[in-house]
């Protein structure tokens, strides 16, 4: 029983990290309806920005987080302005552009920085024991940051003037434009913020998963899985989807053969697509 409860804790902590990994993608998808296949690569790039800030500038962990956030916000704005914006309305072209950009970034990262695992010293070291139960500090803080970000994004979209503007743009960008809203600027802001959040997620997860060019695949797959499961564009759905995937993942590896364990999260995903294509908390016909 003790081990079972510990595995539940592990699943919740992993779910928190999955939520952190996917919040940026969910936001971009929800508001802009853009399937950003370069998400994983931008996530990885953010990690390297923090890593090199830490190594070259001797920046402490939290300063490296801020540097990565700012730099990747700018990178996101550039990618949106020069990449996705001209292709808006042509979903196939946007998808191929995202995939192409992803390959370029990943290949470039491998050539430039090699493929070894890299780590950043984090202030959240070791483990915290609650009686017999163990909570790794790095995972605990990643989960807390995840909750904070999801809460902040939810608050921004639902409770602020900026959020109302973003929802208007999301509902009908042409009509919003006729009302005097600079939709291009709003899209750039959302894409920049989503990219910056992905970078932040990557930095907080480096102490757990380490950093190497391959992490882009993990972030992309998990990001899309969480978004599809939780509900396309639903911010609370992101948390729900991530928690389910985290728990299923841990339980599958804990109580089934490792060779079939990876099937369980995928099976959940397929069932969701079959039975509730809009996701658990998604709404039909509206993405945000």
């Amino acid at each position: 029983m003790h081990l079972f409860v510990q595995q539940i804790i592990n699943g919740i902590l992993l779910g928190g990290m999955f939520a952190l990994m996917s919040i940026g993608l969910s936001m971009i998808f929800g508001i802009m309806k853009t399937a950003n296949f370069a998400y994983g690569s931008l996530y990885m790039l953010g990690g390297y920005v923090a890593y090199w800030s830490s190594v070259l500038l001797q920046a402490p962990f939290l300063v490296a987080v801020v540097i990565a956030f700012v730099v990747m916000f700018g990178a996101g704005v550039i990618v949106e302005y020069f990449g996705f914006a001209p292709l808006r309305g042509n979903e196939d072209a946007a998808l191929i552009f995202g995939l192409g950009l992803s390959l370029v970034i990943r290949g470039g990262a491998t050539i430039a920085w090699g493929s070894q695992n890299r780590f950043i010293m984090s202030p959240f070291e070791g483990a915290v024991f609650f009686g017999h139960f163990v909570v790794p500090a790095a995972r605990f803080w990643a989960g807390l940051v995840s909750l904070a970000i999801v809460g902040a994004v939810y608050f921004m979209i639902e409770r602020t003037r900026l959020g109302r503007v973003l929802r208007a743009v999301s509902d009908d960008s042409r009509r919003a434009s006729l009302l005097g809203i600079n939709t291009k600027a709003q899209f750039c802001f959302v894409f920049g913020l989503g990219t910056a959040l992905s970078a932040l997620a990557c930095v907080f997860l480096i102490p757990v998963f380490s950093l190497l060019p391959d992490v882009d695949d993990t972030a992309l797959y998990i990001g899309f899985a969480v978004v599809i499961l939780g509900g396309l564009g639903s911010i609370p759905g992101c948390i729900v989807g991530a928690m389910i995937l985290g728990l299923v993942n841990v339980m599958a590896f804990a109580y089934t053969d490792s060779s079939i364990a990876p099937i369980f999260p995928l099976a959940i995903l397929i069932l969701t697509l079959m039975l509730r294509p809009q996701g658990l908390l998604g709404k039909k016909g509206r993405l945000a």
Partner: protein
Amino acid sequence: MGILFQDVSRRQVMKGGAKAVGAITISTAIGGRMAHATVDTSQFAQNGKVKFGTILPLSGDFTVVSQPWIHAIKIAIDEVNAAGGVKVNGTSYQIDNPIGDEMYTAAGALSAYKSMVADGCHYYGGLVSIPGQAAVQGVNIGTDSLIVEALTGKDLSLTNNNLRFFEYSLAQATGPYMADYAFNVLKVRKAGSIEIANTWGEDFFKSFAATFQELGGQVVSRSYMEITQTDYSAQISDLLNSGADMLYIIVGDGPGTAIGVQARQGGLTNIPFLAEGAWGPEMLQQGDGGTSLDGTVYPGARPYVIWDAQHQAYSDKLHADAGIWLNNWFWHGYESTKIVLWAMEKANSLDPRDVVKAIPAVVDERGKGLMIRAQGTVVTADKGVFLKIPMYLGRFNSKADFLHETTLVPVQEAKYLGFPGWMPANWAGYTASPDDKSVNWYPTMSELTKMRSDAGEDNASVGL
């Protein structure tokens, strides 16, 4: 039914099909035999050059350890070429070194292999993944190709396939020493392991467990992982819950590092780690990775634990050429490639079937002068040639200057410095099918010692 289709009965279809299958089978068999019988040795060289291919991951998993290995094969070939190439039948041949991307997958390995076969390549080094090896093994016989292999599990390495040269130790020979070290030196009594779920992982675990239990230890946790996995909390909690006082990590590269780091974060703060697989300085490079894996006990060939002028020269060259460290796996490619090239001269032939037979004589003549201090070979009837390579236990030192010293500090006890990394020639595993349950596939240390004595082999360590 029209002029292109005539009404036919089911019986006619069956008879026709049977004839067609029979004809194809017979023609394939005859064709195969004829092709084999009429091998022209000139096919092994083109335009005065012999191809020695490298197939290792350039993308996907295990790219870190692959890089020094790729360079090692290339450096060995460059040195032989610079010395005039390989001299066979009075002709000197230069060696070409095509490189294929294994991608750590069966499909990648097979694709690279087929491409090289089409270009006339008959010698291959590398193949680090089990799926990659499984895909190429067997195919190599039909294409008259010699594979130089490192680590595999018994289900792959002990199948019938004569065109193989195993240049590294067997898990069955090293596992007992790891268990002995854990029990008698580290004083571990309850062992736990996390292993990659394949035949290679299974061999290491079972070889370790047999001796560990014979000594009086208990294996309290055994769990598996997949190469695509990134989170190991389920396995680590199981291990923690079991009360294990050591962790045996049976996978290398990024996944191995991640297991070590996550294990330390997950509450296994003080227990010793033992590790198998492809590890190098990169795994210890920064921050948390370094402190987590410091002191991990790891088995390697002699060059893993010593550092001399030759190491320094290659270290400088690798770092200057490719910006990489001289990691442990450099030695996998370097001397084994040279042995094969020297065997071409010894056999006075470029035909891999002649070359593999000449390897034992080459090792007898030059083995003890090699960095790896090869002690000879075990020549099997059907399974290829196994190098007798002494093994050394070392402990990771993350504070080492990777450019100028080894990351593996040899352990203190002489027993573990240069112990036999091969199975004795009288081991039934060399002749039996891997499925044969009557064979003792995982002998304990005492059984191994007796078997070695019965074979007239020395059990003593070679030393540094």
